[in-house]
């Protein structure tokens, strides 16, 4: 029991969602199936259900993010939970309070769930280990480590458009090195049985020994996009770039930016995804982002249903 997954309770049910790494396919599929039912709820006139009435969910954002925070907030509100948004980057931390002191204080305010975004890898794990067993933690992105709800909404989108994971070729393209999204995607894709996952990036934007994650490495879009069913673009993370990994954004666009010409190398029914926010003209051309094969806006819509599914499954599981 020493090495057991900190995300699972004694019954093997999901207690926290920290990473897609090591989660069994059955749990990933349970989340996707439940989200399917929540899509139905979000299409009604009354988009709210009473499931989490009386529960308090704290959005702890130690790193600024409008989009992710908003989708978690909408998801929680549609489940009738009370949502408290804390933008901690500009409050207690700047007064010197430690991460765990902040968590202790909020736990004393009877929090039921924490949604945590932090620039430090492992922050959500630390909080999950520290809190009382009746509190659930969702990782909304930690450093360059993991972003499991983004990966899950990507899996949901792929299943919606491609139906079966077991005959797909998927390419993840761009700044793999700094991307927590890419790591979570790779773990989810391989667990769900995608037979071929490729990463396409310049050497300077790939982590060392990335092949160990079970992916095929390409440095060239022309070769890498051949036969691809799903293109998962990544944002060029300017704010995470230390030093000169790239000559310039223009240079990057020339070789790795997704233009209609490069997209034509993939299968004609391939879909294009992007976790947002997009840098148009850097990793993706507007003609592709707004084109017929783009499913970028459905990803945003599905993201709410997927987060509703994660929150309600966690809230229903007791340690």
């Amino acid at each position: 029991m020493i090495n057991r997954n900190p995300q699972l309770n004694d019954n093997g049910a999901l207690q926290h969602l920290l990473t897609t790494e090591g989660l069994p396919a059955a749990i990933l599929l349970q989340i996707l199936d439940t989200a399917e039912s929540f899509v139905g709820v979000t299409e009604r006139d009354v988009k709210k259900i009473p499931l989490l009435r009386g529960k308090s969910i704290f959005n702890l954002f130690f790193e600024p993010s409008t989009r992710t925070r908003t989708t978690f907030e909408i998801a929680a509100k549609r489940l009738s939970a009370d949502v408290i948004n804390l933008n901690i980057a500009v409050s207690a931390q700047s007064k010197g309070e430690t991460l765990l002191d902040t968590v202790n204080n909020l736990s004393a305010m009877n929090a039921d769930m924490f949604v945590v975004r932090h620039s430090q890898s492992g922050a959500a794990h630390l909080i999950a280990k520290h809190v009382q067993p009746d509190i659930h933690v969702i990782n909304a992105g930690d450093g360059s480590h993991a972003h499991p709800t983004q990966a899950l909404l990507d899996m949901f989108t792929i299943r919606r458009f491609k139906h079966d994971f077991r005959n797909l070729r998927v390419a993840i393209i761009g700044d793999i090195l700094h991307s927590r999204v890419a790591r979570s995607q790779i773990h989810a894709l391989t667990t769900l049985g995608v037979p071929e996952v490729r990463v396409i990036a310049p050497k300077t934007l790939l982590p060392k020994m990335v092949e160990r994650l079970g992916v095929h490495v390409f440095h060239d879009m022309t070769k890498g996009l051949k036969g691809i069913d799903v293109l998962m673009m990544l944002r060029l993370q300017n704010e995470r770039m230390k030093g000169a990994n790239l000559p310039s954004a223009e240079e990057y666009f020339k070789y790795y930016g997704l233009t209609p010409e490069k997209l034509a190398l993939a299968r004609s029914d391939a879909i294009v995804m992007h976790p947002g926010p997009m840098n148009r003209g850097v990793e993706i051309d507007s003609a592709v982002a707004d084109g017929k094969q783009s499913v970028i806006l459905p990803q945003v819509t599905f993201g709410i249903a997927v987060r509703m599914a994660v929150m309600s499954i966690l809230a229903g599981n007791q340690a």
Partner: protein
Amino acid sequence: MQLPDAELAFKNLAQQILAADNKLFALVGIHTGGVWLAERLHQEMASALPLGTLDVSFYRDDFDKIGLHAQVKRSKIPFEVEGAHVLLVDDVLHTGRTIRAAINELFDYGRPASISLATLVDRGGRELPIAAQYTGVELAIPADKMLVLQREKSGRLSLVLHDKSLVE
């Protein structure tokens, strides 16, 4: 314990509904057994309105005790609930809590003109003030037993009794 024939009970239920059919009912089956019954009733009544289905998992009152059901199906209400005469269909009426959840869910789609309830079996044991307008058969079942509707591949319906302790 000798259980009644589910097919006979269904025949009885369908006859009552067809005899009383003075309204244009919009049929809504509750997952899973209620959907099987509603599908059959929908055929027999030759209803002009499409069939609705509800999975009441998101509206249950025991979420805090047992969590979310592992397999939540998607609710589908393909007609305008506002002003409709809804006939809810379920297999076994027991505590009435499932029906309470179903009524709440329906109201999130609109304000129906009326809601009636058809159940294949009324096994007693109500914990809420809920009654069925149409009942296939009434049965007294001990509280520690669970009565379940089954459907064979041929489509034939049957009732089985389980010990509650063995189920959860």
